[in-house]
């Protein structure tokens, strides 16, 4: 096989499996669904691993697969750019996808939509691979929208539920708001660069740094700033940055495996990947980077707060995802693109682990998702317990675990950044550490330790995945089978080790050489980090040992301690705080009012304007006054004109001839 065939096979195998299972799954034995799709994605993973290995030693591959369309001087192509960035993304995507495929066998076992689900997640894998492997903006947009489509289908997987079909429509529309900016950004790139091919755009970019365009009146805007901000609006939609974050918490209506795959590990990080891929453009605009930095900081901090008051196990993890996406965005804004990608990778492992762990808990609890009904699950679900603990420790940045390396690097980068807004960013990510540790361990303690609260629970309605009920007081939770446990264990391994192994080559080696471009003179953060590494840390172990005495670690530790004190030692305190600070609690419960605002202003506003335009514009003015008005006018006029209708042919003929002559005279004169 040539390399091109291998590259083609990587996205096409999952696509093929998705098509076969999607079209014929119902006719084939049930097991075919998972056998085929797992085979597809496993082969895809194996090939991706091979490609990553190959990319370590060879030059980037940048070739067209086929010409999509030509128009005038522009040509649009489908092609692959395989360098270390895309190869790494391919491995992460296919690995997490493989884990989720296996996990799904257990999680969706009883669901009627079993084959449909496998078809969708394989289709998703295809779309995500097309996105990361693209060598041009058009195909990037294709993958971008295709993952959005599958996300729509999967959030609304249980399409009879009102909440699910509300959430999937909302997710799609909010993402479309982001795509609105993204498409305009792509349009400006094509207009000013004459191509959508990454390589040609990036090679010309430095010469475009000083180009000014005028959009409103004569005010001059830097072209690169406009393009980068527009592209970033796309990233804000997909990667759920404030204020386009509102769809992600609601997306938890989808089955848990896809929350892990799409809404934690892969799709939502597409925006981060995109900005990192566009580093040669973003580096040319400090203004755009400041916007990125500030949006990221707001997301990192304020979404973290919301995690504190959630009681639905999936929503806690969802808000933590939002906050972590904010961290990645901060890294991008600080020009530490490699750090953002590094955190993207570690986060993919530990967040997928946390979600799948949450799914395991949900199964054990018979589809009760309220953490207030859980407790002491460590006794019944040891594998889930240990792996979830590992995931939580990685998330809060415990030294030596993967999350520590990536998160501490982001904090350092925010500290070292010099662009506008970096002070706030540093503050936000520091406070975020404490908040993250607090809500993560609040959940951990409530779920795995303490009293077995379902035993004392009165049975009413629960929010759940399958419309089943929770545990009865006499029931005991059971850990699900190996198809659930194996992915947890396989994800726990990289959650522990990947940071330790990968930090030096990825951030300070030449892994991203020629892939990510940083203007060190203007944006020195990464340069300082490198200096710090070589002068102070030297090794991964050195960084971890230093980390034990650092401020972030203190904050994380105190967050854990506070969670322990509140939820293990003195469970009466949180309730009192809730009453005492009811205003703050109210604001948090309303999620800062974003949903209400969007619902009232944008959704209701559009419907209101639409109705008015229809009733007043179309019905009253155009149809009422003009069309029917003309008819009425003619009706009245005809009463008068009728008198002219003598019934004599020659009168008519005369009038017609006069008319024709008049018309011709008028036209031939001018």
């Amino acid at each position, binding site marked *: 096989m040539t390399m091109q065939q291998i590259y083609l096979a990587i996205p096409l195998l999952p696509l093929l499996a998705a098509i076969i299972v999607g079209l014929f799954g119902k006719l084939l034995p049930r097991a075919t669904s998972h056998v085929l799709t797992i085979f597809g994605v496993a082969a895809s993973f194996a090939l991706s691993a091979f490609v990553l290995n190959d990319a370590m030693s060879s030059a980037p591959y940048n070739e067209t697969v086929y010409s999509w369309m030509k*128009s005038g001087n522009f040509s649009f192509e489908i092609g692959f750019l395989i360098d270390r960035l895309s190869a790494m993304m391919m491995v992460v995507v296919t690995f997490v996808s493989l884990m989720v495929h296996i996990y799904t066998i257990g999680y969706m076992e009883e669901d009627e939509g079993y084959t449909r689900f496998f078809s969708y997640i394989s289709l998703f894998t295809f779309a995500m691979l097309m996105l990361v492997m693209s060598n041009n903006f058009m195909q990037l947009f294709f993958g971008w929208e295709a993952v959005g489509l599958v996300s729509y289908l999967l959030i609304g997987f249980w399409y009879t539920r009102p909440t699910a079909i509300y959430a999937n429509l909302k997710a799609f529309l909010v993402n479309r708001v982001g795509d609105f900016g993204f498409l*305009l950004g792509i349009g400006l790139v094509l207009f000013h660069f004459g191509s959508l091919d990454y390589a040609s755009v990036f090679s010309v970019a430095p010469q475009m740094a000083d180009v000014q365009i005028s959009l409103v009146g004569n005010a001059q805007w830097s072209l690169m700033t406009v393009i980068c901000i527009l592209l970033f609006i796309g990233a804000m939609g997909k990667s759920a940055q404030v204020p386009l974050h509102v769809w992600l918490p609601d997306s938890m209506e989808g089955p848990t495996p896809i929350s892990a795959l799409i809404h934690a590990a892969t799709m939502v990080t597409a925006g981060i990947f995109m900005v990192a891929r566009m580093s040669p453009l973003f580096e040319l605009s400090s203004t755009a980077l400041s916007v990125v930095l500030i949006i990221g900081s707001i997301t990192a901090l304020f979404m973290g707060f919301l995690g504190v008051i959630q009681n639905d196990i999936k929503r806690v993890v969802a808000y933590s995802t939002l906050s972590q996406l904010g961290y990645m965005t901060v890294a991008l804004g600080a020009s530490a693109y490699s750090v953002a990608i590094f955190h993207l990778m570690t986060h993919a492992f530990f967040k997928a682990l946390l979600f799948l762990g949450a799914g395991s808990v949900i199964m054990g609890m018979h589809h009760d998702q309220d953490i207030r009904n859980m407790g002491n699950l460590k006794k019944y679900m040891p594998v889930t317990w240990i792996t979830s603990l590992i995931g939580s420790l990685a998330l809060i940045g415990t030294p030596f675990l993967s999350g520590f390396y990536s998160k501490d690097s982001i904090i350092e980068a925010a500290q070292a950044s010099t662009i506008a807004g970096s002070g706030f960013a540093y503050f936000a990510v520091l406070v975020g550490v404490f908040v993250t540790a607090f809500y993560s361990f609040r959940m951990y303690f409530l779920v795995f330790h303490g009293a077995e609260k379902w035993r004392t629970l009165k049975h009413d309605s629960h929010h759940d995945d399958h419309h089943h009920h929770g545990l009865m007081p006499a029931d005991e939770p059971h850990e699900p089978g190996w198809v659930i446990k194996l992915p947890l264990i396989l994800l726990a391994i990289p959650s522990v080790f990947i940071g330790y192994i990968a930090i030096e080559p990825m951030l300070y080696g030449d892994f991203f050489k020629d892939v990510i471009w940083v203007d060190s003179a203007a944006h020195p953060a990464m340069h300082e980090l490198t200096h710090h590494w070589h002068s102070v840390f030297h090794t991964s172990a050195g960084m971890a040992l230093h980390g034990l005495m650092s401020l972030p670690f203190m904050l994380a530790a105190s967050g854990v301690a506070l969670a322990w004190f509140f939820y293990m030692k003195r469970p009466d305190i949180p309730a009192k705080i809730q009453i005492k600070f009811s205003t703050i609690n109210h604001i948090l419960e309303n999620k800062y009012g974003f949903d209400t605002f969007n619902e009232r202003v944008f959704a209701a506003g*559009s419907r209101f304007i639409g109705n008015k335009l229809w009733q007043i514009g179309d019905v009253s003015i155009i149809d009422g006054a003009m069309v029917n008005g003309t008819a009425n006018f003619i009706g009245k006029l005809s009463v008068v004109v009728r008198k002219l209708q003598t019934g004599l042919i020659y009168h008519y003929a005369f009038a017609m001839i006069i008319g024709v002559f008049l018309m011709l005279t008028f036209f031939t004169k001018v």
Partner: protein
Amino acid sequence: MLNYFYHHILSFTIWVPVLAGIAVLASADENNPNATRWSALLGGLVSFLVSIPLYTRFDFTDGGFQYQEGFSWIPAFNINYHLGADGLAVPLILLTSFTTLIVIISAWEVIQKRVAQYMACFLIMSGLMIGVFSALDAILYYVFWEAMLIPMFLVIGIWGGPNRVYATVKFFLYTLLGSLLMLVAFIYLYLSTGSFEITDYYKFAMPLNVQVLIFLAFFVAFAVKIPMWPVHTWLPDAHVEAPTGGSVVLAAIALKLGGYSFLRFAMPIAPDAAHHLSGYMIALSLIAIVYIALVALVQKDMKKLIAYSSISHMGFVTLGFFIFNNLGLEGAIVQMMSHGFISAAMFLCVGVLYDRVHSRQIESYGGVANTMPAFAAFAVFFAMSNAGLPGTSGFVGEFMVILGAIQSNFWYAFLASFTLIFGAAYTLWMVKRVFYGEVANEQVAALKDLNKREFLILAILATMVLALGVYPQPLTDMTNATVTQLLSQFTQSKLPVGLGL
């Protein structure tokens, strides 16, 4: 024999369906509607096959008129039977013969009264519309243009809904008003040039004020057909009253007659006026895209919603015309083709529901996906294409027009891009209310999923939508040379040198 066919291929594509329609009428036996159906299908199939060589024998490097043929028709007035097709006309001709075939299959057991007349109307209309797309003589064009309205009136008037008379009259008045002004323009051009040859008009220099009048006369005729805001209100009414097949042809082809004619007449004959008035044209297009999308959002009737969506999508077509660059113009043509497939599919989907429940109201449904899963899959797919999802044909045209518009003015593209949000909003909101949720009522509970015939036509359309979305190059290869030629016509000033009068 074969050579004779190739030399007169356009005549064959026009007259085979017309004759087939007449044959179906003549041979109809009321007691044996199935024989009528099969003969209509045969007629449609042969008509479609006859049009295929237009693609296979097409010269992709030639932007001018190919397959030309003709003879002198009325020598006294220099009126010729002159046919020819370029890279703009050929795709639309193929779309016409293809859609007619789909309509015949879709009517199979749905139409029970006057089967032969129904089938014949569509066959004859197909030939006449192909005539519009291939006439190179103004009078010939005008005859086809007016003649195709007759079967359309009959389709709405006979097989239409309860309010069909109002809809037909409204449709008739709107189009008649426009057509008359167009005829005046033709007479003026004839008196000035002594010819009805369209290509002669291309060479005829005119001062700007004359061009503006000519352009406006054409504009009224074509804007009604497309339809552009504010002369669009006949379309939702016509769609609501039309039977499914009527809606399909109306949306998929009849609207394109207007778009096609802009490029064939108004813009190349009066290019300076087209530039002079382009600001207004762009404004009307953008109003169509945004205003109409918002109106679509609040529709309660599925057919009205899709009708408004059509108007909004046709806004992209006219926007693409008047930004005068390759991407915009070619995108507009792609958008016309894509809208042909997608709107046909959407109306057929409504037809599938209407045949079972006899309601077009969104509120009559809910949870249809529970009882009709295969149908729901198709409906979601076509809804996504309507919302312009990449990978479907709906994306290609909009993408090209937006990229073209941004080269003209950033804010044109900005406003046009609202379709990303509104297009998704009105389409998917309808999908949500019709297909998702719990089974809403007993009628929905009793629904039967697609039969083989319905499945077949939706599958064919889905394949086309997907093929054009994944690989639009075969289409743009056809249009490339023609678009370049059209643009050079549009940009070459025709103002007389020296004195203007």
